[in-house]
């Protein structure tokens, strides 16, 4: 139980890091996620079934997700479609694309060589259980991604992306095209989401066009729970918050699943409602905290 909570927290945490980039860093609420997550899974599964190199498949999943995010940004930039709607358009478009890639609505990976089966094959001889191996791999994966993000957001380009979400006029005044930044940022975000989807397909041993439905809620909840943890303006702490937020979220969801099992009139299909409830509670918490802070501040001069 413990292992699977950490494992899932880290696995979906990669997606949450992507959501963090759009919603928090860029201030570009992006719903492409619900399409780019299964896109990553579909690309991964399609290539694994055909026997392509595992790592190539993972890279292609990233590239696919990035392109999906870029499409959303371009729709927003060039056609002036509001960002929420642009994301929804891409998300629905991806449903058809994902079906094409998979060929059917569901592809099994049970007897296929995957990154996870290799990891387990590697760790089993030294006495690790399957759950333990997966957990270790996902921890390693998310911390590598966190490290890359922490460095990236300190580079000149990364800092500029951070400022974009804060003050677009400033970015324009610095001679940078905000449209290009959005393409880069939303693209990168969805690349991460697709990697998360690609790993999820291997974790669950199948890829499904319905895999990503409502996944954005899990991402958002993780980001918001994380914001109650460390208060900092340093990117390293912010990304750590997201990861821990995701682990906490999956812990709570694990508890919710057990509760549903115990309480007779609840069904597993009610889980989504529980997730939404959690997000609403977080949002209310954030608002309450902001209200408190405004009241407490006596305008220091």
């Amino acid at each position, binding site marked *: 139980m413990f292992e699977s909570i950490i494992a899932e927290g880290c696995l979906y945490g990669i997606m949450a890091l992507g959501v963090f980039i759009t919603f928090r860093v860029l201030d570009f609420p992006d719903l492409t996620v619900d399409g780019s997550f299964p896109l990553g899974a579909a690309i991964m599964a399609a290539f694994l079934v055909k026997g392509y190199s595992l790592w190539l498949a993972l890279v292609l999943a990233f590239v696919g997700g990035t392109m999906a995010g870029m499409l959303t940004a371009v729709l927003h930039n060039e056609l002036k479609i509001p960002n929420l709607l642009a994301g929804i358009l891409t998300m629905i478009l991806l449903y058809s694309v994902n079906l094409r890639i998979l060929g059917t609505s569901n592809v099994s990976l049970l007897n296929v060589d995957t990154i996870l089966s290799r990891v387990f094959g590697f760790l089993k001889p030294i006495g690790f259980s399957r759950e333990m191996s997966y957990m270790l791999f996902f921890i390693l994966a998310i911390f590598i991604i966190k490290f890359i993000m922490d460095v990236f957001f300190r*580079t*000149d380009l*990364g800092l500029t992306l951070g*400022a974009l979400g*804060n*003050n677009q006029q400033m970015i324009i005044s*610095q*001679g*940078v*095209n905000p449209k290009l930044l959005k393409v880069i940022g939303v693209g990168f975000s969805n690349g991460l989401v697709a990697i998360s989807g690609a790993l999820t397909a291997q974790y669950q041993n199948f890829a499904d066009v319905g895999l990503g439905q409502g996944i954005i809620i899990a991402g958002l909840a993780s980001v918001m729970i994380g914001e109650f943890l460390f208060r900092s303006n340093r990117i390293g702490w912010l990304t750590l918050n997201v990861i821990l937020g995701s682990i906490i979220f999956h812990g709570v969801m694990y508890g919710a699943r057990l509760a549903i099992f115990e309480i007779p009139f609840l069904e597993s299909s009610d889980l989504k409602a529980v997730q939404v409830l959690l997000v609403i509670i977080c949002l209310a918490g954030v608002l309450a905290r902001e209200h408190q802070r405004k009241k407490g501040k006596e305008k220091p001069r």
Partner: protein
Amino acid sequence: MISLKNIAIVFNKGTPDENLALNNINLSIKEGDFITIIGSNGAGKSTLFNIISGSYFPTSGTVSINNIDVTRHAEYKRAKYIGRIFQNPLMGTAGNMSLEDNMMISYKKGFKWPILSLNQKMRQFFQDELKQLDMGLENRLRDNVGLFSGGQRQALTLLMMVLSQPALILLDEHTAALDPKNAALVLELTSHFVKKYNLTTMMITHNMNHAIEYGNRLFMMDKGEVIFDVQGEEKKALTQARLIEKFHEIRHSEFDNDKVLLSQD
């Protein structure tokens, strides 16, 4: 270096709100000019800046910088040689990023590559530059800019802009939102930097004394036109009374609306 030819801009064309905000603007700005601009609310001063910077495109006419026609060039492209400060001190910096991050972003204009430029040497450089402001900001490199006062933020915006070495700076009532002490400070700094780096400057102000005291050239704007353009000795000899007199002379107006026109604070 900058010239505007027959610039006109119409807002809300074809609606009952149609508004000719600028009309028949012909200007030629020389390198090293420090121009102060006065005029009543709605005279078109900010709109003139928006046309020069590319925030708005004119309905007709051309804008050129160093003989290159930039009338339809995107704002971010022109920003490589134009620095701009707004009345709102929050507009020039990213509030929830640290001071050093803000300075790094504005250190060089143009596209930013994924390279790590912020190092100890840069920090030392930023600290040295920040000392000029004499606000103690050199010890707060890691603080969020959002924690600073309006005056500190505006002074910082000014410094950051100057460091990127723009060919022209546009100041739109950049001290109007500050308390008198901070306003005087930021204005002093402005004048200091303009001299130090020989910056070509346009400064909108509602303070007639500042308009007279600073710069080598003055524009008076009214109803979308530059009605008075004075420089050199004549500018030096200007007084408030002379400016008001001039306005009435040009507009043949007997209205006692000087306060609205050239409000003095």
